[in-house]
Each structure stands twice: as C-alpha cells, then as structure tokens.
C-alpha cells in the first residue's frame, strides 16, 4: 500500500519537475554564460524520484503487495525472489517505468558528462529530452499507471508467464532499453545542434560516444534476447524474423549506419543532413517499435499488453515528435557543405556511403516486411504472413557485395586512394573461394550461392585477421568489429548448412537408431519445485564415433499461471551444440523427441560479443 503511494506520488513530482525545467531552461537560455545550477539539480531530482518510483514498484513485487494491480497481474507468492524482482519489468507498466528511468538517467549523465560544448546546446538538448520525458510521464500516469489499487485485496497473484522466468530474460529488457531508449539522447542533441547550427567535427566526436554507448547496449540486448529464444522457446533457432525481433533490429541497423556516417562527419564535416536524418530515424524507429508492440497490432511471442488506448496515445505522441523534428530540420538546417560534396569514386568516403546504402536497404527490407502485412490488412483486409523466406531472399544475395566491401573499404584512404598490394588482395580472394568450394563439396551441399556467400565471408575473415598483425594498420576497434561480423556470418552459414536433426516419437525404454546416432530413452523422473512440477526424461545418446552423452530435458508444469513448458537440455562445446527437447503427445504415452546437432552455435554468440567489444574498444580509445 504505502509503496504504491510513494511510487505514484514520485511520478507526479517527477512530472512537475519536468514541467518546471522548461521554465528554468527558458530563463537560462536567454542568459546563458553558465549552466544554471538549478537545472542540474532539478534534473538530478527528477532522476531521483523516478528511481524512488521504480524501487517502490520493485518492493511491491518483493513483498507481494497484491493491492497493487500490476503486482497482482504479474506475480505470485511462490515465485523465487529473483523472478519477483525481474517481474517488475516483465509487463507493460513496469517496462514503461524502466523506459522513463533510462530517459531521465541519460539526460542527467549527458548534462554532467558534456564538456566543451555551448551551454545553449546543453539547455536545448535538455528541453527536447524533457518533451519526451513529460510525454512518457503523462502516458504512464494516464494510461498505464503501475500503482493502481484493487479492492478488495486479493490474497494471491496471477503469476508471471513461465517463459519469462529465466535469468537471460531477466536482464534482457534493462540492457536492451539502455540501447533502445538511450538513442533518445542522440535524437534530442541532434535537434538541439541543428537548431543552434553547431553541427561540426567536434560535435561529431562528442556525439559519437553516445552513439557508441547506445549501440553497445542495443547489440548486447538483442544478443541476450536471441540466446533466450534459443534455449527457452525450445525449438533450437535463434532468430525467427518475429516482428518484435525486427522491431529491435531496425534501430540497430539505423544506429550502425549512423555510427559509420558520423566517422565521415568527424573527419570531413560533410554529410550533416544525412546524420541528422539518421539520428531522428533511429529514435523514431524505437518509438515505432514501442507503439507496434504495445498496441497489440503485431502477432508475436512478445505481445503481453494489448490496449488500443495505449497504442493511440503513443501514435499521437510519435506524430508530434516526428512533426517537431521535420519542422526543425527544414527551418533551421541549411546545407552549407555543398562545396565538398563530390567524392572520388575510390575513397574511404565512398566506401562508407556504400555501407550506408546497403544498411538502408537492409533496414527497408525489415521495415517493409514488418509493417506491410499490417497495411494490407487495413486497406484490403487481406491477411498475409511475411516470414523468414522473404527476408532470406531479399537480404542474402546483397550480403555478398556487402561483405566484400567490408573487407576492402577500411583499407582505403580519405579523399583519394589507390589499391595497394593488389596481389595479396586477389590471392586471398582465390584462397577463400577454393576453401569455400572444398568445404561445401565434401558435404554435398554444392549450391552456387552458398559457395559465393561463404567465399565472401571467408574473404572478410582473412583480410581482417591479417590486419591484426599488420603494423601499418591502426584502427583496432573497427577491425575487431568487422572480424566479429565475418565470424558471425560464417557461424550462421555453417550452423544452417550442417545442422542435423532427428524428430521421433518414443516411449520410455525405447531406442531410436539410424546410421549416425542412437538415442536411448532410459527413464523418467519427477521433480517438485516451489513454482513448478517437472517431468525429467533421461536420455543417453551416442554417435557413430562411440561418444556418449546423457541428456535430461524437462517438461515443466508451472503452477501460477498453469502453463506447460519444455526445457531443452543443451550440451555446448566449442564446435557444436547438442540440443534435445521433448513434448508430450496428446492422450498417448509417447514423447515427441527432437534432437539436433548444431555446429558453431557458441560462435554465433561469441562473434556478437566480439562485435560489441569492438564498440567498447572504440569508446575507451576516445576517452584517452
């Protein structure tokens, strides 16, 4: 009770502070030698009250205060403490409070960390960020208050969806949000810089850090979600082109493009309009994503809150923000860099432009694939599904030139470049093609496009690998990230091409055998935990080399709410994952057994970590 009160009034105070900050900013803006200390302290106070509000929601979850509607809907006394806490952001209201927390945290950090930039710029950034913050305060208080009462007070809660009761998923939303919502600060500062016409090389290197931070968290957040989907959703894939996954991929694509583009701006003070448009696009895509997920328009595994009123609010808010940014862009932004607009065709600038070109294409594929079915449904009430085949057909062929450009682009010089060491560039290409051909030939998978695709990924792999040992080549962060990307593409390709799978129905005691694998279903145990009962099936699986592994996948029946889930058992090694999952066949004593061997699974995760590590290195280099 008391925590709900504290939480709710903290939100109200935070909103009032937000409004008062507009007034202080206005006063300070006209008299702007130094940043008013009141602005700094009020921003801190706002953050403080949002933290208080967030903590009181967490406490309500911890003590299972069921007079709070959010807690009642998403918690249960028998849940382990860890999932009581993570349940705080495993629902609509709580996750929006987390949005607000990240919004206020980033503007506070921005104000105290930004030095050597005009005071007016800081104030304006604060104003734009406060517009977003106040919008979210209103949204939270009006349509999604996390502190609603219920009376009479229920004695027990409804429980948390069992597939959300998982360690990876507990930290996935906070990490993802730091990237996703973190892009708001890029949006605000780009609008401020545009209004003040101060976009320059020094501004570019200042904003680059913020882009890097968002980018690193967004990458890691997507990775965590993907790992979770791999072992928890229980069917062995890691990316499903599910609309909600796409919604997080789109800002990532825009942010990655922006990261490359800001390099040009930092060095040459050109492409300013493009940087502005990309920054606005990134945050707009984040907001669009929130709108699509929250409004329940999308059919996906993530939809846990469907309410048209919320959707409408975000939609209106989104249009206001877009309108505002377009207005600022057209009124204040004057393109004054036409003088140096022409690039030599063979230069670093051109290669980055080509990167931008392809990234925008990938973005448009994902965007159109995600929203087109919605539009078609509205316009002609025809329902179509857009799934993995669509994305694969449109993206994979374009990856080939993209990978080749990624290998060569970073070697080029600014302004004008010649290809050096032609011999080794070409010999690496030949080696890659030969290697790809040999690999595929032995596995009877000789499809032309696979050979070309693997060759180009191998080419990038070798080129970046060589650069680690090259003395003349300095850009270590970029090299790590590109190397990671080549590793990612290679692991995904090999993972797809060489995965093997057995699907069969077995009773306890039965054995399945084919030329390569022998699966023995040995026994079944039962287990009782606080929040679920489980059936544990014991398997012994041996392959033709005589190696034997023991697996115990589970079927869990969670008690609150009553939902059955399959827990896969996975044996991870450096070279491959062995993945087994069982399901009950309805009304029979058979179990449906699905056993998969997935090569290089671990490398998919490692290469994404490597990619974000490249970002971290770049971030740390900037500091020194």
């Amino acid at each position, binding site marked *: 009770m008391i925590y709900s009160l504290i939480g709710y009034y903290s939100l109200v105070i935070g909103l009032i502070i937000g409004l008062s900050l507009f007034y202080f900013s206005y006063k300070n803006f006209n008299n702007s030698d130094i940043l008013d200390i009141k602005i700094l302290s009020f921003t801190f106070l706002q953050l403080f009250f949002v933290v208080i509000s967030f903590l009181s929601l967490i406490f309500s979850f911890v003590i299972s205060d069921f007079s709070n509607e959010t807690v009642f809907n998403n918690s249960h006394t028998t849940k382990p403490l860890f999932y009581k806490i993570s349940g705080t952001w495993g629902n609509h209201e709580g996750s929006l409070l987390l949005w607000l927390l990240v919004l206020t945290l980033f503007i506070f950090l921005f104000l105290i960390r930004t030095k050597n930039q005009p005071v007016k710029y800081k104030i304006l950034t604060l104003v734009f960020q406060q517009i977003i913050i106040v919008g979210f305060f209103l949204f939270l208080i009006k349509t999604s208050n996390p502190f609603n009462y219920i009376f009479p007070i229920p004695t027990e809660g409804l429980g948390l969806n069992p597939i959300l009761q998982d360690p990876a998923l507990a930290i996935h939303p906070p990490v993802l949000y730091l990237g996703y919502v973190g892009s708001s600060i890029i949006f605000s500062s780009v609008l401020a810089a545009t209004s003040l016409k101060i976009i320059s090389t020094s501004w570019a290197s200042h904003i680059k850090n913020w882009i890097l931070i968002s980018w690193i968290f967004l990458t890691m957040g997507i990775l965590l979600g993907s790992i979770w989907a791999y072992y928890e959703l229980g069917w062995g894939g890691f990316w499903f082109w599910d609309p909600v996954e796409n919604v997080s991929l789109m800002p990532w694509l825009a942010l990655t493009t922006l990261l490359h583009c800001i390099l040009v701006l930092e060095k040459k003070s050109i492409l300013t309009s493009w940087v502005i448009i990309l920054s606005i696009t990134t945050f707009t895509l984040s907001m669009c994503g929130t709108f699509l997920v929250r409004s329940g328009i999308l059919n996906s595994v993530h939809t846990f809150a469907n309410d048209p009123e919320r959707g409408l609010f975000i939609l209106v808010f989104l249009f206001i923000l877009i309108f505002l940014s377009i207005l600022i862009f057209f009124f204040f932004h004057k393109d004054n860099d036409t003088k140096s607009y*022409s690039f030599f065709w063979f230069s670093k600038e051109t290669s980055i432009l080509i990167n931008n070109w392809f990234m925008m294409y990938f973005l448009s594929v994902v965007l159109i694939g995600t929203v087109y079915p919605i539009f078609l449904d509205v316009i002609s009430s025809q329902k179509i599904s857009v799934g993995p085949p669509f994305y694969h057909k449109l993206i994979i062929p374009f990856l080939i030139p993209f990978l080749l450009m990624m290998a060569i682009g970073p070697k080029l010089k600014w302004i004008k470049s010649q290809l050096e060491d032609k011999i080794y560039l070409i010999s690496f290409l030949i080696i890659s093609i030969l290697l790809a051909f040999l690999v595929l030939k032995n596995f009877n998978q000789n499809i032309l496009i696979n050979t070309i695709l693997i060759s180009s990924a191998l080419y990038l792999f070798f080129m970046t690998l060589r650069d680690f040992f090259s003395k003349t080549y300095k850009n270590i962060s970029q090299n790590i990230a590109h190397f990671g990307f080549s590793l990612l593409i290679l692991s995904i390709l090999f993972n797809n091409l060489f995965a093997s799978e057995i699907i069969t129905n077995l009773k306890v005691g039965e054995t399945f055998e084919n030329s390569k694998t022998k699966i023995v279903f040995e026994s079944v145990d039962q287990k009782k935990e606080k929040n679920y009962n489980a059936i544990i099936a014991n398997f012994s699986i041996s392959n033709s080399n005589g190696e034997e592994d023991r697996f115990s996948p589970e079927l869990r029946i969670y008690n609150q709410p009553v939902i059955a889930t399959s827990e896969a058992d996975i044996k991870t090694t450096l070279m491959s994952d062995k993945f087994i999952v069982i399901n009950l066949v309805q009304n029979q004593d058979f179990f449906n057994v699905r056993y998969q061997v997935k090569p290089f699974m671990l490398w998919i995760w490692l290469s994404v970590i490597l990619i974000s590590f490249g970002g971290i290195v770049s971030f740390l280099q900037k500091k020194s």
Partner: protein
Amino acid sequence: MKFLKFFLIVIILFTLSSVNAEENDKRNKITKNLRCLICQGQSVYDSDSEFANSLKIVVDKKLQEGLSEDQIYEYFKSKYGEWILYDPGLNKNTYILWLLPILIFLIGGAIIYKSFIVKK
C-alpha cells in the same frame, strides 16, 4: 542369381531409405514455411500444438500422394488463406512488398552516384 537378388534388395532398400530421408527434409522445409495458425508467431515446424501436429501429418500424406511442394502450398492456401504461408508469392497483393525494397536500393544507388561521386 542369388547375388543379383541380394543386389536388387540392397538397391531398393537404399533408395527407399534415401527417399524417406528426402521426404523428411522436404516435410521439414514445407512445414517451416507454414504458419501455425493457433500459435503466436510460430511455424508449424516449430510448434507442437495439436493443430501443427495434424498439419504435419497432412503434409506427409500429400507428399506420399506425390504432390509437389508448390502444389502443397496451393492446397493449404486454398484451405486456410494466404495467412498460412510464410513466403508470400509475388501477386497483386505483394508487388509493393517485394519490389519496394529493390526500388529503394536502386534509388539510393542513383542518389549516391549522382550527388557524390565525381565522374572522370
């Protein structure tokens, strides 16, 4: 003669098992492209719901009847509507879906070429 018989049997067994394996691959490929209509964003292949399992059996049956992949998609489309196919074919409903990204790619290339690159 005995040898020939044995040889024949081996060949038949071999082809049968490889046909089976091929059929399995084909079944997997087809079910991956079908949406499980009662699930939230899962394919028939991934799902273990009753609906998905019965659809898997239907696919097997149709394969045994000798229908081609496309014919099977056609069959499901006529029965459940286009919603069930993950790979939307190119038709008047989907021209924009398939062609707009390509168009964006071409326009993007043209813009870059026209406005930035010196032609010498």
